[in-house]
């Protein structure tokens, strides 16, 4: 066993990274989803729409920009799946959960900011996604995605 590791150091490293990537990635994802669902249920009453808000005169007390952003990292296992997908084509299923988590987390953070500042709703929601860390370490880069959610928080003139 040790001899094999000694003879093929990079192959063993590759396998170790795969195992770590899969196990840690799966645990992290499960925990993240659990927390996302819990917080979404807590914040479900705060309305978020991506429509432009139109309000009657005097209905709005104040409005301000809120945003939430999050960065989620890829792991070696997902990257391997994506590389293999690049050969055959089709949906890169491994990355779907990554994007989904980042998007929902960003919206949640934005909503949290709006709630602490006393907003009643968020209009004009926009989402932006970008990759980071790809050019930092060219050859064996493990990229991350950043999702930014921003919108206009509105505080109503309610009694």
């Amino acid at each position, binding site marked *: 066993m040790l001899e094999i590791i000694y003879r*093929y*150091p990079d192959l063993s490293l590759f396998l170790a990274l795969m195992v770590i990537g*899969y196990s840690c990635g799966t645990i992290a994802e499960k925990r993240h989803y659990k927390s996302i669902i819990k917080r*979404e249920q807590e914040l*479900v009453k705060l309305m978020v729409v991506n429509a432009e808000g139109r309000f009657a005169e005097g209905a709005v007390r104040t409005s301000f920009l809120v945003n939430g952003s999050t960065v989620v990292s890829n792991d070696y296992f997902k990257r391997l*799946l994506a590389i293999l997908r690049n*050969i*055959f084509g089709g949906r890169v299923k*491994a990355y779907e959960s990554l994007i989904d988590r980042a998007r929902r987390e960003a919206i949640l953070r934005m909503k949290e900011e709006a709630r602490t500042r006393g907003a009643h709703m968020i209009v004009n929601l926009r989402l932006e996604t970008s990759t980071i860390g790809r050019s930092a370490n060219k050859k064996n880069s493990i990229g991350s995605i950043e999702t930014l959610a921003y919108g206009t928080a509105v505080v109503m003139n309610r009694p």
Partner: protein
Amino acid sequence: MKFTPKHIEGNVNVSKTHPLAELGWLVGGLVLLALIFYLSLGVSTDIAVAKIPVSAEVWLGEHFIGRMDALENESLQRLLQPLLDSLPADSPLHEYRFQAQVVENEQINALALPGGHIVVFSGLLKQAESENEVAMVLAHELGHYAHRDHLRRLGRGLGLTVAAIILFGQDSAASDLASKFFLVSESHYSREQESAADRFGLELLVAGYGHAGGATDFFARVGKDAGSRIPYLLASHPHPDDRVRELQELIAARGYRVDAVIPLGQDLRKGLPLSKESPDKEPASWQTGKLHGFEALITRRFKVRPYNQKKFCLPKRH
């Protein structure tokens, strides 16, 4: 419009497929593709190899390896000659102009390079005891030429490496892994090729020397150092002990005589005057590394890291 807060169960944005299942399908597909490619490459190489004339092979050898006329070793050539003389008249080997060379290298090995260059490493000569034994090694290499194994190996190794690079790109981790895998599996002749060359070598040795003395000596000595059989289960080379057994069975079956061997001359044992001719010349990778000729060329040409090159090594202390 009334806003009704409602938490949505389930998730349409993420596929339900288990990642390990997906990995299984993708890797399975890749292995299947590689297998089909490998088999078709094998078949087409076998067809092509039978049709390649010796003159084209000589040109190929010179093109790839460069001219090595100056390196010809007379003492070794003297051992080769009786073997060549005893070849049957219709043997295709007569078309080659064989050149036996000694290369200074501690490895106990010999190579058959395209174009009739037989390279024997000095490590082999240092521990060899008889002329018959070295002649057996030369005859074994002649067997590779007779079966054109060296060309078969070239075709597959080259094809697979090029395919891996085209598929994944030169620098990607996947191509690194794939080429490593292919080069590992292609770095030696197959067990069948080795055994066939052994049989050919034995017949030639008996034809040249009149008896089978010394035929098994080399493998027997290597077998003592080879140790456990377990690594050889996966290796492409048969275990030396198995080769000795096969050869002995063949000797018994054919009823070959086993006579006394001729001790190896001092000229061959130590005689490496030609390596001193160009001490400042940098030795080629195939001379220094553990790699066989063409893998070294391929790896150098395509900048693939050879599989057995140590990636991490401690600095030398003086």
